[in-house]
């Protein structure tokens, strides 16, 4: 690490901003561990958890209705065979991306500022994937078969899935992604689980955290193994950041439908995913740091960095939209041209222009430093981007499908109340899991926070 020596000063100044002055090893541990260990749960947590849990019930109810009656309870039809289901799938998968990016790529790039946000960003990834996978399973006509027929398993009928289908690629991409994300998150948690085990007061929690810590004693060998495992997983997760959304985008790009059949989809989907993911991290971290007084750890510097990432990816996404429109015109293909004209002036034009407003125009306000460092503004803009990214998928999926090649089959699409309850229900599932996470787990990586303390305060020497 000698090569980093010349930049020690820069790192020093950055660390100043990454953690508020005055913290010691003990104060960090105490502050973060106490969130999980304290006896009294704040009233606000119950309110938030209660609302999320109610929404989760809406999801369960919807899925029950869906299983009893059929996917017809949703608004899908012919020609619009995919609606909220696949919009939500892509949306949730996209949101998950920021977590993996923060944990893996920023780790490899040695971006220390990731430390205070990576834990809950990874948790967010995991929960987002959990929400996402509900849709590909339950959107099928016969989920009880789809749940396993999509996997290649040896069977007496000698039947294999169709490896030419992007949906099969999805199965591999998403299941790999889910597995690696879970491992990554859990491996990163082990040292902190040990901390909680050691600090827990009640016998029961000692046992629970003790089991989760998997016998961590903090020996040098443990640390050595841990560091290699973590780095390896980071290496594994890095291509996934790119591959998962690339594969998801191929669901569309491999189709023949105008508005789907475009080579620009993979990069612009990945950028969009990171965009949406960072927006979600901001949406979660701003209230979180406020409610739990974590301003010391999640500093303005963090928020500003995330805002910058959002601005950058937002611009890539804007470039994607521009290229889509340009290619529609430049190709001279009448179907593509019509598709673009229909997006901009058809029955769903309002959604297209809202999308442009949310995803292209609004984020440009982040150029302004005063706004970029205003938490209220950042929170609002992160919500706007979240909505914008949902609209993007709406514009791509139903709006492309509703008017494809033969005017005789043109139709229209609208979500039913079951579409909405499934969507809001997964938000409920996500928040429920997140509330449980912030109540029982260290929301910020304790041991990694310790490492960014300035040397004089007990932090590791920055070589």
């Amino acid at each position: 690490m000698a090569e980093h020596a010349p930049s020690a000063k820069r790192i020093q100044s950055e660390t100043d901003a990454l953690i508020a002055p005055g913290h010691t090893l003990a104060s960090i541990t105490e502050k973060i561990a106490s969130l999980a260990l304290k006896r009294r749960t704040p009233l606000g947590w119950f309110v938030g958890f209660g609302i999320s849990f109610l929404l989760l019930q809406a999801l369960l109810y919807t899925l029950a209705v869906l299983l009893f009656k059929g996917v017809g309870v949703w608004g899908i039809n012919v020609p619009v065979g995919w609606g909220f289901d696949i919009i939500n799938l892509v949306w949730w998968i996209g949101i998950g991306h920021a977590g993996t990016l923060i944990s893996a790529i920023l780790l490899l790039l040695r971006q220390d500022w990731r430390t205070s946000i990576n834990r809950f960003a990874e948790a967010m990834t995991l929960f987002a994937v959990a929400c996402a996978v509900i849709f590909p399973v339950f959107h099928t006509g016969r989920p009880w078969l789809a749940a396993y027929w999509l996997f290649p398993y040896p069977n007496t009928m000698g039947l294999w899935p169709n490896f030419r289908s992007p949906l099969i690629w999805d199965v591999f991409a998403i299941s790999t992604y889910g597995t690696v994300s879970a491992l990554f998150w859990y491996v990163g948690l082990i040292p902190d689980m040990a901390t909680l085990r050691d600090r827990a007061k009640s016998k029961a929690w000692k046992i629970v955290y003790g089991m989760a810590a998997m016998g961590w004693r903090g020996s040098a060998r443990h640390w050595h193994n841990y560091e290699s495992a973590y780095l390896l997983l980071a290496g594994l997760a890095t291509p996934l950041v790119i591959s998962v959304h690339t594969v998801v985008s191929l669901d569309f790009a491999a189709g023949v439908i105008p508005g789907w059949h475009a080579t620009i989809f993979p990069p612009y989907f990945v950028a969009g995913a990171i965009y949406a993911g960072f927006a979600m991290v901001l949406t979660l971290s701003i209230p979180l740091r406020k409610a739990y007084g974590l301003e010391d750890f999640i500093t303005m510097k963090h928020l500003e960095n995330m805002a910058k990432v959002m601005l950058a990816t937002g611009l890539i996404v804007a470039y994607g939209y521009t290229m889509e429109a340009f290619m529609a015109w430049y190709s001279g293909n009448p179907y593509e041209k019509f598709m673009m004209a229909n997006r901009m002036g058809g029955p769903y034009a309002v959604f297209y222009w809202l999308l442009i407003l949310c995803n292209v125009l609004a984020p440009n306000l982040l150029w302004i430093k005063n706004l970029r460092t205003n938490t209220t503004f950042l929170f609002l803009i992160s919500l706007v981007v979240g909505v914008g990214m949902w609209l993007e998928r709406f514009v791509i999926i139903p709006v492309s499908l509703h008017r494809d090649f033969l005017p005789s089959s043109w139709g229209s699409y609208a979500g039913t109340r079951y579409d909405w309850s499934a969507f809001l229900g997964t938000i409920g599932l996500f928040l429920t899991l997140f509330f449980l996470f912030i109540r029982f787990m260290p929301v910020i990586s304790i041991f990694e926070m310790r490492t960014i303390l300035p040397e004089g305060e007990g932090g590791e020497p920055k070589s």
Partner: protein
Amino acid sequence: MSGRHDGGEAFIDLASVRRRVDGAQGRRYWKSLEELADSPGFQEFLHREFPENASEWTDPSGRREFLKVMGASMALAGLTACTRQPAETIVPYVKPPEEIVPGRALFFATAVLDGGYAKGVLVESHEGRPTKIEGNPDHPASLGATDAATQASILELYDPDRSQTVKQLGEIRSWGAFVAAVKAALAAQKPLGGAGLRILTETVTSPTLAAQIKAVLAEYPQARWHQYEPLAPDNARTGAQLAFGQPAEARYRLAEADVIFSLESDFLGRGPDGVRLTREFAQRRRVGEGQAAMSRLYVAEGSPSLTGANADHRLSLRSSEVEGLARAVAAGLGLAVSGATGAHGPFVVALVKDLQRAGAGALVIAGESQPPAVHALAHAMNARLGSVGRTVSFSAPVAASPEAQSASLASLAQDMAAGKVDTLVVLGANPAYHAPADLEFGKAMERVALRFHAGLYEDETAARCQWHVALAHPLESWGDARAGGGATTILQPLIAPLYGGKSPHEVLSVLSSQPERSGYELLRDQWKQTLGEADFESRWLRAVHDGVVPGTEQPDVPVSPSLGAWATAAPAPAVPGLEIVFRPDPNVGDGRLANNGWLQELPRPLTKLTWDNAVLMSPRTAEKLGVALGTSNTGSANTASGSPTDVVEVRYQGRSVRGPAWVLPGHPDDAITVHLGFGRTRAGRVGNGVGFDAFALRTSDAPWFGSGAQVTKTGERVYLACTQDHWSMEGRNPVRSVSLEEFEKDPHAIAEMGEAPPRELNMYPEFKYEGHAWGMAIDLGSCVGCNACTVACQSENNIPVVGKEQVARGREMHWIRVDRYFEGDVDSPSVHHQPVPCMHCEQAPCETVCPVAATVHSDEGLNDMVYNRCVGTRYCSNNCPYKVRRFNFFLYQDWTTPSLKLLRNPDVSVRSRGVMEKCTYCVQRIQRVKIDARNQGRPVKDGEIQPACAQACPAQAIVFGDVNDPASAVSKAKASPRNYGVLEELNTRPRTTYLGSVKNPNPELA
């Protein structure tokens, strides 16, 4: 216990079920059926084995009795449980029924009735269960093809809502009680000579029925027989009488016609002769090698029709102006007529020239909706052109007693209102629903002391009669009927009456003083007189087997028209103001088929509306009235989306109805069209409450059009279910059409309208088709858009009905749809129809995207659907550029109604919820023929395999076969310069291709 079936409680049960049934709305047919079936009342009704015992439980004393009886039988049952059950062996047929091979269908010739006329059919029967109707190639009105209504009549046979019993005032009675009641009524009439007896039937062409009625009338000389059908050709009959001074029926030979001028005649539309006329018309619309010169069709009409849609020149004008035009043309042809209008001068001039050029090859046809004078004019024009004998011939009427039915019904209504009628016997007709509104027939009926009704349904008329008898369906009973031209068919039953109904012959035999006899005996006795006693059996068998009795065609009669006073009488002056036009619904006709889910859900050829009729009007009239054209509700019932359409109130002659407005391009301005056959109140669960009842406005003086209607917006808005909201092709060319002139100049004009990529472009290895390679060619030049293919496919492939709400949400299940596009000016557009089945692409976009390989390519090039592998991701449907795939969003199939189980084709899977389905090219038929050919050690012959759509097509527009065989008909069709693939630029290489349509406009009118 069994004796109690006749007891009082049974009636109470049934009444409650009836109420339930009546309350259920027809638009949710299958769904509500399911609900009903689940309700205890309906379960009880279906399984009437112990209907009373269920109610015993709620009655304390009855329960004790019940428990005593049941206790004893339980004890006995317990005894048997201690012993081994005796082995039961299934004994195979000791003497197997002749010809029945399990799994192999038999076909029987019979006929389906349309307005009393026979349409010859062959009915497919699986182990005694009729499942599908095909045309009878030997029958002159079928020629092997069928129309949509004929295809759908198999569903009527199994309709669970059909009347099932004899009833008196709503209570079940025995047949014997009915006979006694009739005999008593007749006994009272006997001394009066039957002065108070009236028999009302629909049009009768059946020689046996006519003889029976005449025998009754001979016994009761004062009695009268009336016939009424709302669509009866009264005007044509009166017109022929005017022109010739004698009754005559015209028979058109379109195959001979070079120039056809239709005065509002919808000869390609529904009607007893529609199939034959479509076939003959289509023959002359093909262009290519070995084809006769193309015919040219001019249509002048006041309401857009299928015939108008196929015209080379269509003149849209108000119905009341057609007569003036006819007179102008007649004057142009040199006939001494007056009353010609000066309007449409260039059209008239060019038309007259064209007609004269064609001479004997010209044909003028007047439509039933035009007054008798126009019919007489048409006959005079044909005589003038010399076409009588070539394109049109005349014969004595086929109906047993041709009369002006409207006048006949009016006199009956008068007699009833005057109290002259004591006993009314209604056989099949439903005047309480469809009689002209001014007759107030229903009210007049109340003055008749004793009213008997026999019908397939307990309809509006049955509700006004004390006695009702369930009629047997024509497919369940013996009978006979004649087709246009006279050819007579002996109807044979395919199955014993499902609900114990009686045939009309059996009902009528009750009126006779002869001992009661079965329909079979009555029929044979009648035919013994016709065919002769000698060698009767073999001739009878031959006639029944063939479906046509030889030698029954009417000979032509030489007639010559004379110009009477009608020729010079001025036509009724056109009245300014809104004109109302009445037309039968293209699917359900006069409403007798209203309870047929297949027909209700079949998109109407021009409007593409399902499950509703509407007040049709031109865009300009709609603008004037300020009504908005709606779109389908694509949301669910509770979350509506789309724009509803305005409901308008139509007032006409002091009566009014409310219905949704619908804009139809090509409709003349200042006129509205309303379709009859809707707004039924007692059609059954499917048909009740569908649409509005236009009969409520129809009067006997203006049965087809009248002026002085008023239309006002009510402010109310409703959703209609339309399968194609979009009118235009949007500059794309799914349908390619050129004029004959262009085509002759450049035969490749059609092919050059699109571009197919080179064959090398393929990501995956090429398929090799070493054996057969199935393909289809659809000739858009001859397709008239009649929808017969859609219903034939529905019947063959067990396709469910989904109901109005689901259709509106884009979930209709038809495997072959007929697309309709308007082109050109919105006031007088040209109309294109295009049947769209699965294209069976050689590079199918659906196949690559299915994750579970549920849709796969066969080695014969079929795009196979593996239902039990499908998990329903719908990716295939999204990726299908033709959107021919259909998804079972819910459990659309009715798995519970017993009678509908009999309907299903056993060779085709009945799909369940969550599964994708689509056209298979009728793979079951392909396999059947291949197996037969292999067993016989021979190759499959060309034309041997016919998918249901191709077989039904009256225009023979669909050709199917092996494209690997260069001699096959389909290969030859595909070699035509008119051949093209829709969206072939996507490199899908569709196996279904189209032959572009060629129109033959008059260059002088260009």
